[in-house]
């Protein structure tokens, strides 16, 4: 069955891979992102792959005043929204953010406040529909603060908590809220990292996202092995953890 899917931050690697899987099953897609040329390239690809319909919407996702227009346009075009995937984000530069609050603020604005603003706009649409999935990409980095990326981690952690509360709020109304926590993904965002065996490609994450949507999972770690890894990391006593270099 084809679905109506809204993808926000569509030109990110994970979002692109997810959009392709949706296109192959003939979904109707509404893509939002900042770069018109990139969105156009992606849209052509999705049409060739079999998407029933692809609409693109150019806007700066960091600017929350653009969010109402985005959600209205998506709703008008798609009618019912079966799945919304909020996928935009930045990694940021931890060292620089430690010394420059403006940079830290920007990380929070893009990774936490912008998704929260979009969710705020989307929730009334979903309430009216009484069904559908709201999914957002958070991160394993949001599970525990670590010296190497606590600004990014704190922003993603805020998003994870928000989604947790929203899930609790919307559960009685039959609306599915999915928190996606990828581990190491080989994307342009992580281009300069040395890659080890825990790294996976974006399509592995995309497959996991759509499976979690179908199974109406609450929180999905992708790949699965991050769940036990993070369980261990979260279980380390703080007195010990503060001495570790992770």
């Amino acid at each position, binding site marked *: 069955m084809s679905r109506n899917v809204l993808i926000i931050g569509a030109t990110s690697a994970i979002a692109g891979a997810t959009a392709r899987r949706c296109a192959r099953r003939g979904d109707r897609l509404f893509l939002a992102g900042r770069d018109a*040329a990139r969105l156009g*390239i992606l849209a*052509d690809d999705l049409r*060739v792959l079999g998407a029933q319909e692809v609409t693109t919407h150019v806007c700066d996702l960091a600017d929350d005043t653009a969010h109402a227009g985005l959600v209205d346009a998506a709703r008008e075009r798609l009618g019912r929204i079966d799945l919304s995937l909020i996928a935009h984000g930045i990694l940021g530069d931890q060292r620089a953010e430690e010394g420059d609050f403006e940079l830290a603020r920007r990380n929070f604005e893009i990774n936490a406040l912008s998704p929260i603003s979009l969710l705020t706009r989307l929730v009334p649409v979903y309430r009216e529909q009484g069904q559908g999935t709201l999914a957002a990409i958070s991160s394993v980095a949001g599970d525990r603060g670590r010296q190497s990326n606590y600004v990014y981690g704190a922003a993603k952690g805020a998003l994870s908590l928000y989604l947790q509360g929203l899930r609790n709020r919307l559960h009685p109304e039959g609306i599915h809220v999915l928190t996606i926590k990828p581990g190491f993904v080989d994307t*342009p965002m992580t*281009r300069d990292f040395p890659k080890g065996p825990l790294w996976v490609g974006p399509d592995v994450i995309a497959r996991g996202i759509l499976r979690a949507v179908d199974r109406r999972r609450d929180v999905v770690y992708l790949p699965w092995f991050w769940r036990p890894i993070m369980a261990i990391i979260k279980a380390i006593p703080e007195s010990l953890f503060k001495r570790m270099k992770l």
Partner: protein
Amino acid sequence: MPGYTSWGRILRPRHTLRPPRWRHEPLPDCGDLSRLPWGRGRSYGDCCLNDGGALLPTTALDHFIAFDAEQGILRAESGVTLDAILRLIVPHGWFLPVTPGTRFATLGGAIANDVHGKNHHADGTFGGHVTRLELLRSDGRRMECSPRENADWFAATLGGLGLTGLITWAEIRLRRIASSEMEQQQIRFPSLDEYLAIAAESDAEWTYTVAWVDCLAKGTKLGRGVLFRGRHAESGPLAMPRAAGRLGVPVDLPFSLVNSASLRLFNALYYRRHPTRTRSRRMPFLPFFYPLDNLADWNRLYGRAGFYQFKCVIPEGQEPAMHEILERIAGSGQGSMLAVLKRFGDRPSPAMLSFPRPGLTLALDFANRGEATRRLLGELEAVTIQAGGTLYPAKDALMRPETFQQGYPRWQTFAAFRDPAFSSSLWRRVTGENA
């Protein structure tokens, strides 16, 4: 995660990675480093390597642009794999016009190596089915090239080993198929002479022909093997078969599983498994074209030292040279299960540098045993040159500059089309250039 190396895993190059992200954007800044596009590292030697320079992996340039399912015209970015293309087109009744023995190569790689397949005698090389492409040069210039527009750049880029600039996208003409299944026949042949007779007869009537040869058989059995001939079935299902759960070789073996004992046993059993009379069957296209693709990372079977492939073409009329090559291989006891023999047809390629030419081609892997292996390959290269033949850059890691320059007489014409900021380990090796 696979590293940025080549399929033979002999070389351990050092690269600065500069992956392009989107086809409309400028080339990544590489400073003073020379650059080379890299698709999926499915060529065997050093034509996809640029030791000490920058590598431009095209992994992210994997978007389709347009597919005309009525006319069978496909336009896609150069990093799209043949596998992705097949998944798209087969259900619509189309097939690749020419395909190499792996579907995990990219469109850009297929063009840059002007690859060929089992239908060379009927359809020529891949380059003959490319209708248009865009070249992005290091000076920022973009050029649309086709047989009519920028025709000389087009001819240089087909088979151009990635050296004329980055191919951002290309358009190809597809082959109509009525079914995704193949009709296949297998015919055992007891000698090279018998092969030549059966191959000539088969090439006249079958779209695809290829032979396995027992590289260890000597004396009267020299050149024995099994010929496979096939065509697309005229009716039947049209579907991308699900690849049987891909097995993989998860680690580098500390030694090669391919040795003379395992090889002798395999070859004798494999030859006997095929009956003396012709056997016909119907099969899905995946195992017909890509029998090795189901074993992921099979190159690891050759152990940490990697392997070489020897792939030569011996011109028509020089068959005794092929006898000599097979004799030397059998005498050495080296070689592998995968020895492939094919008769090239006479359809010329539009490419300036193209490997196939009328005659016999032999492809054979050799586990890397150091000097002994390189000495044997040097001998085989000498026999090839003597016969007026040449080696295939896509598979080669060893050929001498004279071999390349004699085998590709237009190489100096080609050199004028090379992007001055592009280079490869192979190019420096066979031309003696330092750039």
